[in-house]
């Protein structure tokens, strides 16, 4: 067997090796990598920095993969010399390894501009997992970070640091951001978005020196200003690693020179990836690497034939929550620009057409059409006939048409180079029916995920038993499934509704998504977040239930339905004093005062001297009880005390939908616990805890969660379920839908049967939320917003009549 040595354990080298392994085995493979990790997805480092992913999440080839293919993996060894006569390479560990074929995939390094003080402690580059880890160690709230370079890498670093809480400033030499991918208009839009999100940007300036005694204290700029800094990230560009090639006398210019077959100037030596210069171009993006790797694999295995003819440079990414796509030559010189811009929607699109063909495209804010443009660019198709529909495609006659129009050779997943043909083959030959199976099988959409919807479309059109795994999206304003959205909110540390809407939504929101987001933030941050009252329904702004005439109903909390003569007297006095039109006993063992005017609410609450019953909100309603063992001849458990205690543990918390509870002392079920969201049913010697019951729009008998011996155990089981529901239900999903959706077995497994640590974690988060929860009616004394309850009286009195007939009588 011939010996193949691969120098470089990164994305290009390993993608190429994967292709080589598809041919008949003919090599004994050794891979050298100077990093100490297996091959990982370098383009996801920004997600690691932003805390969205862990290092394990971005592994592309596991140790098992290397073992399975008998690859001798040598990590932590840098190859420092190559002897092309003896055909050996020498490593930093002194090892000399012979080769029959040598594959150079040495990648690129951060380019360091000539700045004084780059050696100081606190100066970083952002290229590797180790760089990222080092940055994460330093980053944190209040840390002042300066990023040198406003290109793709610099902005990704800036975003990650900002998510970590740093105070970030980007210093960029050019007058516009990401000028390699975006024209000034596109860059301007991005600039606005970044500043909106609190990242400072200084354009048209260079960093002249890094200041500080040993470690970074600040930077000096070309405009003679200085600024404080605790850490500096240099992301001013990349440079192909050609030192090794030069040592071996292999021809190199900016990169290692290769022909269309990926052969270097020396026989048996090949090169691939960012270290390569092909037809005068060095690529810094991922898609070309895969194309090069396929060609190289054919060449090196003796199947020389397919030629690499260059790649249309294209980048599709999300910067600071903004979708950006850039491809081809978008300069307007000798080209016909076609544009669309809507500042309010945050969308900018520009296409450049030359000689009836698309030559370049920039999309900011909406990249849904990028595949169409990419294909036109790749195929150099004549688009003269479609000029009217360049920016907005004509409505497709049927949903599958877009898919049907794609040729089999069209790349669906640009990251991993998976074509439509490959996906269709997987569907037919391997019985793929779901997106997860497709990912498993072809790896399509496992990298950046931007082709997910296209993959879904293909599956829907082709797979005989397609199963849509998509979860329900909150609403069109924030087009994410709720579980996904919770992950985003958590990992991105988003703490206000408006921030979520601006970064991941349409910036506006509506009456559906705003309350949902309000709830999610409250739950995720255990109440430690910036509550935005404008995002909540009027009931939650004034803590009472609006009625058909605009008045409100007031239901005080009566724990467990156990009241006293004193409470009843106060309720009666309030009813008299405020001339309450109706006083009613509710179906929940509570008392409702109907027809209260908004402006009277604070005084009504004060006069009642009772806490809010949360009857107006998606929150903890009541715990209905029977008299249990205290008075009843049949009672087996003290349901009254248990119910009162349960209500105290949960009161003032918010939930995805209302939560009604009950505790009964025996299976006669007088307080109807088996049709409540959570019910405690006393039996001889213990309690049954039941969940997911309903007696409203639908009637459903609750499922048994667990049977326990003591009241404390029953309460804890309720708490586990309660918090689990809070964290995992979709907004406005009642427990009875939630339990049916998940299945009671799963609910049990993840609550009462969960490992100790998981149970403790649930209870801990519940306790944290509870510690922040307050009786909302306290706002009667200290309003949250100005004029929360009262109408405004104009500063200027209305002196003359005409606008109003009865002005004279109006006490203004």
């Amino acid at each position, binding site marked *: 067997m011939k010996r193949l040595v691969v120098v470089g354990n990164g994305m290009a080298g390993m993608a190429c090796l994967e292709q080589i392994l598809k041919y008949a085995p003919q090599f004994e493979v050794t891979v050298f990598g100077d990093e100490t990790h297996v091959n990982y997805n370098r383009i996801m480092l920004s997600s690691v920095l932003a805390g969205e992913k862990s290092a394990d999440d971005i592994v592309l080839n596991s140790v098992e993969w290397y073992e399975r293919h008998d690859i001798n993996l040598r990590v932590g060894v840098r190859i420092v010399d190559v002897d092309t006569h003896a055909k050996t390479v020498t490593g930093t560990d002194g090892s000399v390894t012979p080769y029959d074929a040598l594959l150079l995939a040495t990648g690129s390094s951060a380019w360091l501009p000539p700045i004084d003080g780059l050696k100081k402690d606190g100066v970083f580059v952002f290229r590797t997992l180790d760089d990222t880890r080092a940055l994460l160690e330093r980053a944190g709230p209040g840390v002042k970070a300066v990023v040198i370079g406003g290109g793709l890498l610099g902005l990704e670093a800036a975003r990650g640091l900002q998510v970590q809480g740093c105070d970030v400033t980007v210093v960029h030499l050019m007058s516009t951001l990401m000028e390699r991918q975006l024209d000034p208009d596109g860059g301007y839009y991005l600039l606005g978005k970044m500043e909106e999100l609190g990242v400072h940007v200084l354009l048209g300036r260079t960093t002249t020196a890094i200041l500080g005694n040993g470690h970074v204290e600040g930077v000096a700029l070309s405009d003679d200003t200085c600024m404080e800094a605790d850490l500096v990230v240099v992301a001013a560009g990349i440079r192909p690693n050609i030192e090794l090639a030069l040592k071996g006398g292999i021809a190199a210019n900016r990169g290692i020179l290769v022909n269309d077959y990926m052969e270097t100037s020396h026989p048996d030596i090949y090169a691939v990836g960012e270290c390569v210069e092909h037809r005068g171009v060095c690529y810094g993006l991922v898609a070309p690497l895969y194309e090069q790797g396929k060609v190289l694999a054919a060449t090196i295995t003796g199947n020389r034939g397919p030629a690499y003819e260059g790649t249309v440079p294209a980048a599709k990414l999300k910067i600071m929550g903004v979708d950006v796509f850039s491809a081809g030559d978008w300069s307007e010189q000798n080209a016909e620009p076609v544009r669309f811009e809507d*500042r*309010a929607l945050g969308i900018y699109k520009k296409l450049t057409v030359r000689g009836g063909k698309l030559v370049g495209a920039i999309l900011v804010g909406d990249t849904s059409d990028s595949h169409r443009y990419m294909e036109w660019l790749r195929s150099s198709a004549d688009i003269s006939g479609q000029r009217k529909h360049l920016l907005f495609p004509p409505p497709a006659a049927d949903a599958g048409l877009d898919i049907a129009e794609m040729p089999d050779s069209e790349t669906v997943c640009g990251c991993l180079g998976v074509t439509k043909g490959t996906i269709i083959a997987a569907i037919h030959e391997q019985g793929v029916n779901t997106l997860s199976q497709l990912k498993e099988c072809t790896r399509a959409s496992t990298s950046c995920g931007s082709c997910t919807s296209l993959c879904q479309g293909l599956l829907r059109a082709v797979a005989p038993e397609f199963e849509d795994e998509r979860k329900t999206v909150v609403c069109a304003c924030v087009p994410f499934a709720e579980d996904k959205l919770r992950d985003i909110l958590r990992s991105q540390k988003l703490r206000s509704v*408006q921030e979520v809407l601006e970064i991941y939504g349409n910036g*506006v*929101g*509506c*009456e559906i998504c*705003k*309350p949902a987001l309000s709830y999610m933030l409250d739950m995720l941050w255990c109440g430690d977040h910036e509550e*935005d*009252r*404008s*995002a*909540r*329904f*009027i009931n939650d*702004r004034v803590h009472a239930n*609006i009625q*058909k*005439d*605009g*008045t409100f109903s007031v239901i005080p909390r009566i724990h467990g339905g156990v009241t006293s003569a004193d409470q009843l007297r106060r309720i009666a006095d309030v009813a008299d004093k405020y001339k309450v039109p109706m006083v009613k006993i509710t179906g929940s063992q509570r008392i409702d005062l109907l027809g209260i*005017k*908004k*402006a*009277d609410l604070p005084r009504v609450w004060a006069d009642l001297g009772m806490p809010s019953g949360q009857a107006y909100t998606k929150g903890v309603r009541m715990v209905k009880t029977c008299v249990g063992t205290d008075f009843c001849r049949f009672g087996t458990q003290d349901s009254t005390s248990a119910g009162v205690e349960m209500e105290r543990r949960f009161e003032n918390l918010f939930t995805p939908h209302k939560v009604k509870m009950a505790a009964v002392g025996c299976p006669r079920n007088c307080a109807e616990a088996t049709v409540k969201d959570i019910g405690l049913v006393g039996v001889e010697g213990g309690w049954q805890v039941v969940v997911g019951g309903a007696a409203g729009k639908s009637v459903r008998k609750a499922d048994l969660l667990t049977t326990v011996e003591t009241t404390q155990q029953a309460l804890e089981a309720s708490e586990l379920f309660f918090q689990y529901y809070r964290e995992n239900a979709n907004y406005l999903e009642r427990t009875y839908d939630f339990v049916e959706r998940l299945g009671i077995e799963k609910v049990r497994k993840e609550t009462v049967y969960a490992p100790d640590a998981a149970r403790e974690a649930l209870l801990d988060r519940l306790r944290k939320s509870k510690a922040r929860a307050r009786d909302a009616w306290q706002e009667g004394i200290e309003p949250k*917003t*100005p*004029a929360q309850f*009262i*109408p*405004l*009286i*104009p*500063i*200027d009195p*209305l002196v*003359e*009549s*005409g*606008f*109003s*007939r*009865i*002005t004279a*009588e*109006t*006490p*203004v």
Partner: protein
Amino acid sequence: MNSYRWLRVTPTGNIPPREGRAVLIGDREIALFNLGPSAASGAGDQFLATDNQCPHKGGPLCDGIVTGASVVCPLHAWKVNLQTGEVERPSHGKDHCVATYPTRVEEGVVLIGLPAANAGTPEGAPYEEAGTPEGAPYVGHPFKGANRGAAA
């Protein structure tokens, strides 16, 4: 041409961004909204004013959730455009307009422009079309009297 009487209403800070408040002017209840910082007008918050009565069942529009330049009535989720006064949902149309009033901000105070006594219907503010479903303007809000009494 524009015959408005401008009335100083309240400091801008009294209306939080994306919320509305009721203002009593004469016997009329006007809903004054703060749409939040506006991209078009620079950094300052943008204010809009309409009658505080949903054309559907008279719901208090000031208590609705603001979405863009519209408000969703808290009673039955009718959506009303605050710039034009037109109903956008359930169906778009000019059949049920809400009167709109011009606003401006001076020295941190929001002003509302009222149609002058002798000026008839102001341009762009068809206030005479507004009012209760019975078509009788100025009869007042069903619960306005209560609010006013409490605030006095």
